[in-house]
Structure formats: C-alpha cells, structure tokens
C-alpha cells in the first residue's frame, strides 16, 4: 500500500489530499469536492495539465494574444506544446475561443485564444498620424 500527499490544483483552494494506492484500489481523502477526488486519482494514474502561453499577433491593437490548450494535455507533453508554438503567429482580429493551432504537438488538443484582440484602426505610418489636440494639463 502506498500513500501520496498531494495538493489539489483543480481550484485555488488547494486542498491537501492523501491518495492511498492499494493495487487497483485508489482512495482519496482530504478533498472538499468531487473534482478533488478525480484529480487525486488522475494525478497518480495519468497526470495532466492545461498549458497557457502567448503568441504574437500581426496587425492587432496588442502585440501578443494569450492562449491555452482547449483541454488537459499529459504533464510530460507540456514542454512539447510550448516548443510546437515557437513559430506560430496569428493575424488580428482574434476572438476568445479562436483556434490558433489545431492538434498541438500531436496531443489531439487545440490551442485557443483567451483574449479578444481587434485589428489596428489604421496602418498609417507614425509621421502620418493625425495630430491630436493635447490640452495642457494643470
């Protein structure tokens, strides 16, 4: 029989779990909700994570857009996911949920945008930008 002390990361409460592994029997204590139970079982059988990062945007009001895996990927694939995104960029406009890269690192999971980035209003060069009236303050 093996006992493992884990911290549930399914939500920010971070309950302290004790997972008891006895052959095929896995028992979890210390969890506050069902998600914690599932996490405890999964963490000792098939640990996974959601990966979040950013990719560059062209033509957008922001330089980068934040994104995440649309579901869990195996823990040992996290770095592969990041590596698979090094060359990826996207054109504005981007909406939350847009697929940025399908089947990232062959995980069967997509990378989706987590922020809206609208297109830059105009592509005027800096010298052509119309002058605003900046009133003197104070």
């Amino acid at each position: 029989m093996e006992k493992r002390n884990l911290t549930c990361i399914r939500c920010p409460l971070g309950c302290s779990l004790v997972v008891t592994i006895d052959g095929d029997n896995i028992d979890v204590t210390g969890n506050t909700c069902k998600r914690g139970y599932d996490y405890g079982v999964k963490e000792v059988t098939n640990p996974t994570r959601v990966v979040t990062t950013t990719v560059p945007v062209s033509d957008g009001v922001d330089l980068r857009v934040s994104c995440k895996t649309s579901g869990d990927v195996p823990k040992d694939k996290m770095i592969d996911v990041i590596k698979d995104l090094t060359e990826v960029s996207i054109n504005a406009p981007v909406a939350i949920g847009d697929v940025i890269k399908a089947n990232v690192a062959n995980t069967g999971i997509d990378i989706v945008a987590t922020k809206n980035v609208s297109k830059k209003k105009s592509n005027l060069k800096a010298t052509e930008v119309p002058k605003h009236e900046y009133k003197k303050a104070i």
Partner: protein
Amino acid sequence: MRECDLVIIGGGPAGLAAAISAFDSGIKDILILERDKELGGILNQCIHNGFGLHTFKEELTGPEYASRFIDKVLERKIEYKLGTMVIDISKDKEVVAINPEEGLFHIKAKAVILAMGCRERSRGALNIPGYRPAGIFSAGTAQRLVNMEGYLPGREVVILGSGDIGLIMARRMTYEGAKVKVVAELMPYSGGLKRNIVQCLDDYDIPLKLSHTVIDIQGKERVTGVTIAEVDNTGKPIKGTEETYSCDTLLLSVGLIPENELSEMAGVELGITSGPIVNESLETNVPGIFACGNVLHVHDLVDYVSEEAGFAGKSAAHFIEDQKKFEDKGIEIQINTGDKVRYTVPKTVHPDIMEDEITVRLRTTNVFKNVYLNCYAGDKRIVHRKRPVIAPGEMENFQLKKEDIKDLKAEEIITVAFEEE
C-alpha cells in the same frame, strides 16, 4: 461641472463588478474611469488559468475572466473612459481626472467607489545591498514584459519572494526557455497559494528555499550572480549558509501594497492593510466613498474581489438612493482582531443598518494547524469553525449575521480569533 451618481475609479475586476451590481441595484448614471488603454486591470497580464471556478464553475484564464465582466458592462451600456487618470478626489466627492481628449476635467459624484488595485513593493523597500545593475525586475513587470510585449527579461533567473506572481513567473519563464535556478523566501512559509507551488515549481523541479534571503547581488552593468543565505528566526543571515547562483536576472516578488494616494487626498483613513478602514457597507470614514478589491486589502483570488466589489456596488447604490439611512447609522461596533488575526475587513459594523448577513474577510499572522476560527459578540461565541491549516497567504472568511449582534450595546465589541478550541 459634470454631475454623476456614481464614479468608479479603476476598471479592473473590482471596478467592473462594482459597476454591474450598482447598475442592477437601480443606479444607471455610472462612470468608470480607467487609466489603462483597456478594461480588465491586472487580469490582462495574468494569462494562466484557474480563475473563476467558484463564480463560473469553469477554469478561466485572467483575460477570459475579465471579458465575462467587461461583456456585462457593455451589455448594460455603462459609460467608461479609458486612458483616463484620476488625479484628485475631494472630501465632497469631486473627482479630478485627465485624458488626452478632454484634458483636465471635474466630476461631482453622489458616491465614489475606490477600485484602484495595488502595486508591487519595489527593491527600494527591501534594502538589498550592492550596485544597481540591470536585470532586476519586479515579478509583475516581468509578467507584463513576457505576456504582453513578448520580451524575455533574461535567461538565468533567481527569484526572491514566493508570492503568487513570482511563482507564476517561474513557470512562465521556464516555458519561454529560461532556467529558473531557485526561489528564495525570507519567511518559513510561502506567501503564495499551494496550488501555485505545485504547478509552477514542483512540476519543473525548481527548488523553493524557505527562510532564505538575498544577501548580495553581483555585477555592475548587468546582474551576473546572486548570493542567498539562510536566515535565523530574527531574519538575520546565518554565517556559512551562503550559496551563490550565477544568473542574469533577479525577479522580486515580495508583496503588493494597495494603491491609496488618491484615497488619502480625499481624507480616507487607512488601516493595517494599507487600505481604507471600512464599515459593514465597505464605506470609508468619508461618507459616500466606498472601497473594494486590492485597494482595500490584497486578495489572492479574483473571485473574492468580484464578490466583495459586487457588495460595494450595492452599498453605493443604497447610499445614493437613501442617504438619510446612511447618515443615521445607529450604534457602531468595533471588530477587534484577537489572537492570530492580523486584520479583518470590515473593521466596524452598524447592526441597525447592516444586511441580514455580511462576509468578514481576514488574514492570520502565521501558519497554524488545527485551530478554530472563533467570533465573539461581546462574550458570546457566535462562530466556531475548525480550520485544519491556516496561512497568511490564504484569506479566510465567515458570515456575520445581524441576528447574532443586533442586541450588542455600544461599548461591547466583536472579537475574531483563531484559537485551540
């Protein structure tokens, strides 16, 4: 001068939630003033997930969480001004702001909600010896650089302080190809959430050294190394425990302080949280000025920020509708911090005008195991709850019921403490 029922300063999660709830409580003439180019506050740079599980029953990233609230503000057509910095507030709720289009302008408000958030403590506040080479960043600055500007501050990193932003940046920098060598924490416990230690350090075998601090920074132009040492229980470095790490970057994640320069201009009294002292309605000592979110006390979970701010919005709406009730609040009862309690929000309650139930939020002074959260009204115990573990990094809360305190006399107090039984 423009007049407005409710002016909200700051368009982060606190300001947004306050606006939505004030609107839904019947106040339509609302103006949000935000100095940044977009709504959402600091959440825009918090790209990791884990937000909103308690509010939306799903795990969202910072920008996704913010967008839920931004959408609600847009749906209600609540007015907001971006790129607009508030520079002064007076006692009679005249707000002075400035932006490029309108220059300097004044607004007279019936009520004001302070939702300016917090900022990071800087190196200056820390007294680390040595030169001032390039390569020292606050963790939040690094977060902004990496996540919003796509610029990696360095390749080999030491992090001082185990606050959540530092932990999250340890993982983020690792993703971007940097090597995070160690996280040193002065206290014998981490200031961050447990889940962040698991997900951001343990997952990548980044060591966390508790009771350690930086005693020397090497390099003149750019950081070339950092020496850390273990400290004794008075915080003094212990000789012989020094370890030097070569690195080009030092991130500081040594805590946040509420941003209250404006509050002080309005004559708002600040307390031990470095935020305003508030009553049961989250109202400051200046009538009609309310506070919520990180400007009031630093929160670790944005869900609680939204909840608290929603309540502030509702209170402000009540104030605007019925100022009389707020003028005559009846007797005021102090909430005392008893054993092992650093602070409570609110600090005072007026049983006559309070809602049937309010949330009291508090933090402890240290890590304790197997204690009870006890609350006494006079000498009667009204809350008694077992807490297996409490830590300064994790905010606690309980519901205070009007029924339990309505018979208190003016000279009696409410006491909150963590006790053995």
